[in-house]
């Protein structure tokens, strides 16, 4: 490298340009530097005045009135109530459908132990999420217009710093109360204490991540910690199953312990608040930008954008090694290799695949969950999570089809090529999961024979979901229990899951029946091939829309023919 030579070149200029290269001075600090327009300086206002001014000025021209606000609050309350009621109902019906198991019969893992592990998984997810979100950030305008002001930043950042811990507090409380009261059937004081413990735990996790951010921890470190904790969850479950931990109740903290945890949360909140001003501007900007992108994705119901928001900022800026792409032999292998590199570099998606394997396998070894319906649900969820995790290449291509356009491939071939990586991942997933199901229900070879053609359907579903078009937000709104939504949103969001349900129908039937037949295997081959054909299609219209278009075209042709006949 020629840096040394360049520095010598610079040094010679240093001697010639004394003013520009004078000798280093002792550090003089920030004082004593005159400023342009300094004479006009008065007292700098407090950060709360800045916040208040921004809010008041915006309020003057805000279109929303108090009625609109109340209406929004009402709708939010209704949606929340519906969501909690549905979740409570599902948890309750799941509990009543679970078989009674005597814990004295050498059971590997009891349901309370499983719920405990589930809470651990939720904590790990929260660590990962809080790490990826910052959790303290300043969005675009706030970063551009507030962070440069010479005021105490704590006052500016306080509302943002409180938001996530409070949201975590509410969600944590509701979820743990639902698990304890709904799934485990606890009642009264125990459910209240479990809910409060869940709320405090969730708030503590987010506050802990915020405290780490004030100490200089990066978002990548937070995300990686969460991902590693998530991987540890199935490992812990395996250890519990091996050792045979079978508590009959989920341990719920007593009131004094809850008081101590609450005191700890307050102390952590105070510590974080006192250090908010120490968070670097770059960290605040990044976190604010990710949070804005994530909120936008949620509002527009775009899970792909949400995934990008949570992944991109937490990825390292530079790679230690460059992939040699040795497997590239032509356009198709180039596409497949690119998708493989993308998957290999995404820790989040690799963790998802590991968890997606663990979910159905664990369902077959926990006696209370070893029923046809719970295992079917576990296979459905685990399979879809694994397939989605492996289709990042397709999701990127849908947003920016750079590689697809650079390579000499027609769109259908490109989509089929993009099914290769999900196919590879789902082959591994299917071998492990259906071997476990075969071990549980018997006839492992039969289950594997059914699972292998199913791989095609999973891959097709993943690619179809990844390439789904964005909902048309300009179309007519329809009132739903979840607020007003444009027509056609459901059809768009169902692209992908529809293939999971229909393309794997023989597998679902076999799981309900509890055994595999030759007819089901043949049917699975057929439905998988149809799934691949459907997912290869580049049409963005739904089946109904295509039927209507065909009908319209036929009508126009008929009218044209009649008009022609009339002229004759």
């Amino acid at each position, binding site marked *: 490298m020629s840096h040394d030579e360049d520095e010598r070149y610079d040094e010679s200029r*240093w001697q010639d340009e004394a003013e520009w290269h004078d000798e*280093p001075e002792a550090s*003089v600090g*920030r004082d004593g530097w005159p400023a*342009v327009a300094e004479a*006009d300086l008065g007292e700098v206002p407090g950060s709360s005045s*800045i916040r208040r001014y921004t809010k008041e*000025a915006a309020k003057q021209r805000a279109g929303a009135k108090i009625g609109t606000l109340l209406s929004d609050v009402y709708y939010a309350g209704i949606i929340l109530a519906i969501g909690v009621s549905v979740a409570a109902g599902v948890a309750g019906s799941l509990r009543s459908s679970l078989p009674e198991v005597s814990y004295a019969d050498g059971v590997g893992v009891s349901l309370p132990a499983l719920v405990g592990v589930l809470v651990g998984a939720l904590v790990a997810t929260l660590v990962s999420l809080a790490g990826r979100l910052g959790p303290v950030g300043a969005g675009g305008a706030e970063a551009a217009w507030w962070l440069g002001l010479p005021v*105490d930043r704590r006052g500016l950042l306080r509302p943002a710093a409180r938001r996530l811990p409070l949201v975590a507090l509410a969600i944590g409380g509701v979820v743990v109360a639902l698990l304890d009261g709904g799934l485990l059937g606890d009642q009264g004081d125990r459910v209240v204490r479990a809910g409060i413990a869940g709320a405090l735990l969730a708030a503590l996790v987010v506050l802990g991540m915020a405290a780490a951010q004030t100490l200089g921890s990066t978002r990548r470190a937070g995300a990686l910690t969460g991902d590693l904790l998530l991987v540890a969850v199935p490992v812990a479950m395996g250890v519990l199953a091996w050792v045979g931990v079978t508590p009959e109740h989920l341990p719920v903290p007593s009131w004094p312990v809850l008081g101590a945890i609450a005191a700890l949360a307050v102390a952590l909140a105070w510590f974080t608040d006192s250090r908010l001003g120490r968070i670097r501007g*770059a960290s605040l900007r990044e976190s604010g930008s990710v949070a804005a992108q994530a909120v936008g994705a949620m509002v527009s119901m775009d899970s792909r954008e949400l995934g990008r928001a949570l992944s991109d900022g937490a990825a390292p800026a530079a790679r230690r090694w460059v992939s040699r792409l040795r497997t590239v032999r032509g356009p198709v292998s180039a596409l497949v290799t690119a998708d493989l590199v993308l998957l290999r570099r995404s820790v989040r998606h690799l963790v998802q695949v590991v968890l997606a394997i663990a979910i159905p396998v664990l369902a077959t070894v926990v006696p209370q969950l070893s029923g046809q319906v719970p295992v079917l649900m576990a296979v459905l969820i685990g399979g879809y999570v694994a397939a989605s995790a492996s289709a990042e290449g397709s999701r990127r291509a849908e947003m920016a089809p750079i590689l697809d356009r650079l390579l000499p491939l027609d769109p259908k071939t490109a989509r089929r090529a993009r099914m290769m990586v999900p196919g590879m991942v789902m082959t591994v997933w299917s071998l492990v999961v259906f071997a476990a199901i075969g071990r549980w229900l018997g006839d492992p070879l039969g289950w594997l024979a059914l699972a292998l053609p199913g791989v095609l359907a999973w891959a097709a579903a993943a690619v179809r979901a990844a390439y789904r078009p964005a909902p048309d937000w300009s179309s007519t709104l329809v009132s739903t229990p979840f607020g007003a939504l444009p027509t056609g949103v459901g059809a768009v969001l169902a692209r992908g899951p529809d293939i999971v349900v229909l393309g794997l129908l023989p597998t679902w039937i076999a799981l309900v029946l509890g055994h595999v037949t030759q007819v089901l295997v043949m049917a699975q081959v057929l439905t998988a091939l149809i799934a691949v054909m459907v997912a290869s299609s580049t049409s963005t219209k739904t089946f109904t829309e295509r039927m209507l278009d065909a009908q319209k075209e036929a009508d126009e042709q008929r009218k044209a023919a009649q008009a022609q006949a009339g002229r004759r």
Partner: protein
Amino acid sequence: MAKSRSVVRANKLLVGYGGAPVCAPVSFNLPEGRALALVGANGAGKSTVLRAVIGLIEPAGGSLTVLGAEPDERDVEFRAKVSSVLDDDAYFPGLTVAEHLYLTARGHGMLGARELVAELLEEFGLAEHAASLPTALSSGQRRRLLLAAGFVRPRSLLVLDEPEQRLDLRMRADLADRLNAEKEAGGTVLMATHDAVLVRAVADRAVYVDDSSSPLLKADEAAARIEAEPS
């Protein structure tokens, strides 16, 4: 001539992301009341050097002092004295053009903020749009709003990232006058630019930022290099 103090001193400064430098080490002193331009091709690392100077990223190597100490944008005094105009095209959706400037002026404790804002709106050709929301402005008008925000507050060092972007020729000439007036008032200017005319009109020296070497040049030499680059 008495030696003036260095407002910015970079010695073998390495900047980059994830520990990987984006350009060759950069060395320069920027004396008080002078202007230094960072020139070079797109992606050469000019904006990254500026980000290090205003404390948004930490140097990957070498040393850097700004106003006599390491740059730290968490320091209130640093923020009070370093004004930067990057390409942050983000605005409060409910605040007008004038309110954005007023917020900045009052946030820095400027007296007579309303008069100052009115003066700058006039100077940057935004007087007619004072009551408009920034989303209603053209891209060039939004750029002028950002530049006006850099001048509506007190500053010892003014850092500009490609200030000529999206400005017409008249506005570029006005900006050059503005920056020369800044120097005459004792202010110091550090800017990244692709505009040879601006370099000749304002800069006293320039650093040609590149991945193989980053030499310090006289303004004319730097302008000639810019003109020689394929457009």
